[in-house]
């Protein structure tokens, strides 16, 4: 099993003032080393929650109900929390947030913030034990390592095409545009030399021409470094651009997982088909999906798409389908998958 990340049967729920929302329902997902996986879906599908759960940063009111997240064979949910925090989060697994505007503190220079990151998460830093924190606070930041880190920072800033990196380090975040800030976030995600980057809608907030630049940059950098990426988006076009494989989610359940071309050309799940059909076309015809996304508080039983699905049968209501292969790496969870037309 050469999987880097393997999520199995993960369930997460949220307590809200209206009841308990079953936000993730026994999700299973795997990412291989060097693979770029897109997690697509509409509002409420759970993609952001899944990304956050892997990262271990669920907001208040969220609770993991079951399942496991295996990282290089070890279950993150059962490991010592401090170890996960020191070694995995921000180091082996890093994060690119959606909103470049609020991700950096406005009070400190970019250099201060990046070097602060390097102090704790530099790949040159030794492995700390489970009691890592106190000694590190006292130990401070040794000069030799700091210089090496700074060189690495400048290198990566050049790689993400920030002009004049030395000057950039002395500037405050508000002096950068949205596109440049996102490049900074990418740089900060790459510096710890992670094995997996989780990117949460990284180009949603950007203009389309800037988005194209960032997508291209991201694609080049991750391929160069052999980093895996878990990339959430509601924009199918960006998934098409960036990903080797696409997983589609609906109302907290994953529905289909396929290599990109197969996903877009031969979708097997009725929801995927409907989703692709509702994209605006040049011809002007517009098709939507009847019905509404169900509430996650008391969601439909079995396959959660069945109330809106043309092919639903009693089976679909009774029990959620298991995943089975359509063709090679193309897997779907459906009792009535569409045949390749």
């Amino acid at each position, binding site marked *: 099993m050469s999987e880097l990340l393997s999520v199995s049967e993960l369930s997460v729920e949220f307590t809200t*003032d209206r009841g308990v929302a079953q936000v993730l329902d026994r999700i299973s997902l795997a990412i291989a080393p060097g693979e770029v996986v897109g997690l697509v879906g509409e509002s409420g*599908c759970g993609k952001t929650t899944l990304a956050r759960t892997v990262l271990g940063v669920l907001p208040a009111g969220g609770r993991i109900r079951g399942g496991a997240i295996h990282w290089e064979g070890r279950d993150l949910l059962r490991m010592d929390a401090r170890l996960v925090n020191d070694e995995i989060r921000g180091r082996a697994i890093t994060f690119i947030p959606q909103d470049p505007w609020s991700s950096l503190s406005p009070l400190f220079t970019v250099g201060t913030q990046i070097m602060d990151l390097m102090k704790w998460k530099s790949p040159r830093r030794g492995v700390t034990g489970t009691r890592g924190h106190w000694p590190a606070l006292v130990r401070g930041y040794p000069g030799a390592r700091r210089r090496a880190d700074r060189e690495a920072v400048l290198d990566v800033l050049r790689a993400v095409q920030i002009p004049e990196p030395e000057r950039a380090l002395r500037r405050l975040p508000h002096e950068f545009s949205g596109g440049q800030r996102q490049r900074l976030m990418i740089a900060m995600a790459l510096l710890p030399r992670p094995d997996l980057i989780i990117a949460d809608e990284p180009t949603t907030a950007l203009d389309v021409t800037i988005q194209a630049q960032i997508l291209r940059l991201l694609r080049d950098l991750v391929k160069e470094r052999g980093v895996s990426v878990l990339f959430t988006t509601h924009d199918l076009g960006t998934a098409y651009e960036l990903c080797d494989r696409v997983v589609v989610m609906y109302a907290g359940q994953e529905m289909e997982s396929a290599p990109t071309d197969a996903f877009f050309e031969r979708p097997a799940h009725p929801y995927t088909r409907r989703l692709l059909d509702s994209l605006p076309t040049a011809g002007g015809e517009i098709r939507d999906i009847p019905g509404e996304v169900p509430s*996650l508080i008391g969601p439909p039983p079995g396959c959660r798409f069945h109330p809106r699905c043309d092919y639903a049968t009693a089976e679909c209501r009774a029990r959620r389908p298991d995943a089975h292969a359509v063709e090679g790496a193309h897997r779907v969870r459906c009792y009535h998958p569409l045949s390749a037309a």
Partner: protein
Amino acid sequence: MRGALFVLARLARDRSALVGLVLILALALAALLAPVLATHPGDVFEIHPAKRLQPPGAQHLFGTDRMGSDIYSRLLYGARITILIGVIAVGASLAIGVPVGLAAGYYHSWASDLLMRVSDIFLAVPQVVLAIAIAQTLGPSLPNVILALSVTYWPWFARLVYAETRSLEKEVFIESTAALGASPLRLIALHVLPNVASPIIVRASIGMGFTILTAAALGFLGLGPPPPTPEWGRTIAESREFLPDAWWYAAAPGLAIFLTVMGFNLLGDGLRDVLDPRIRRAGGAVRASAVNADV
């Protein structure tokens, strides 16, 4: 009104606000039923020099004053004065301050700035001092006290409403209703005012307490309604020369003032807690759906 009942219900859950409400109701009842509750209703005007300065007892619940009149009964009638002053002064301040604040807030002209600078001037002087100055100039009487208080308190409402209106005009629904063709009058009266009502109500309640306190201060200084009007502040002033022996003479009106002001303050605080989160509650529905949204 469904809204008012809802507020009362929420208010009842807050213990200190409930205390405040009870105190205010007690005040209102005292004023309303003074003739019925008073043991010696005639003592507002009559004097009984033989019975002067008697300590509290069965006959006289709070004792008698220097004229022999029953302090308890005079306090009850004094409650009427207190309420009258409070309601009219705060009412007048509202009637002046709210429209001024709305107009200054909605329009962006030199007139708005002028109005706000004028109210700033009033706000710069401590209310008590200003009220004293005005009452002193006009002479001690009930109408003059009310006038002095109204004149010093309206800027608080003006400033508050101005700030709220300015922040509200950035709201999309105001802009879009204007784009729909609504006249400024309609916008201000039907859209802005209801949305700024909550802070106004809170301030009015707290303002009552503050105004009553200032009125008592004016009365104490002899600038209030002249004797034999049983105004609470004046009663305390009268008691000065007989302290500390005739302690009840000052304690009774002092307690009455204290309870009244505290009652309004507690009520105001409680209202603030109820009214503000209720607005956020309106967006509380968002929380459940936010789980569905950006998840």
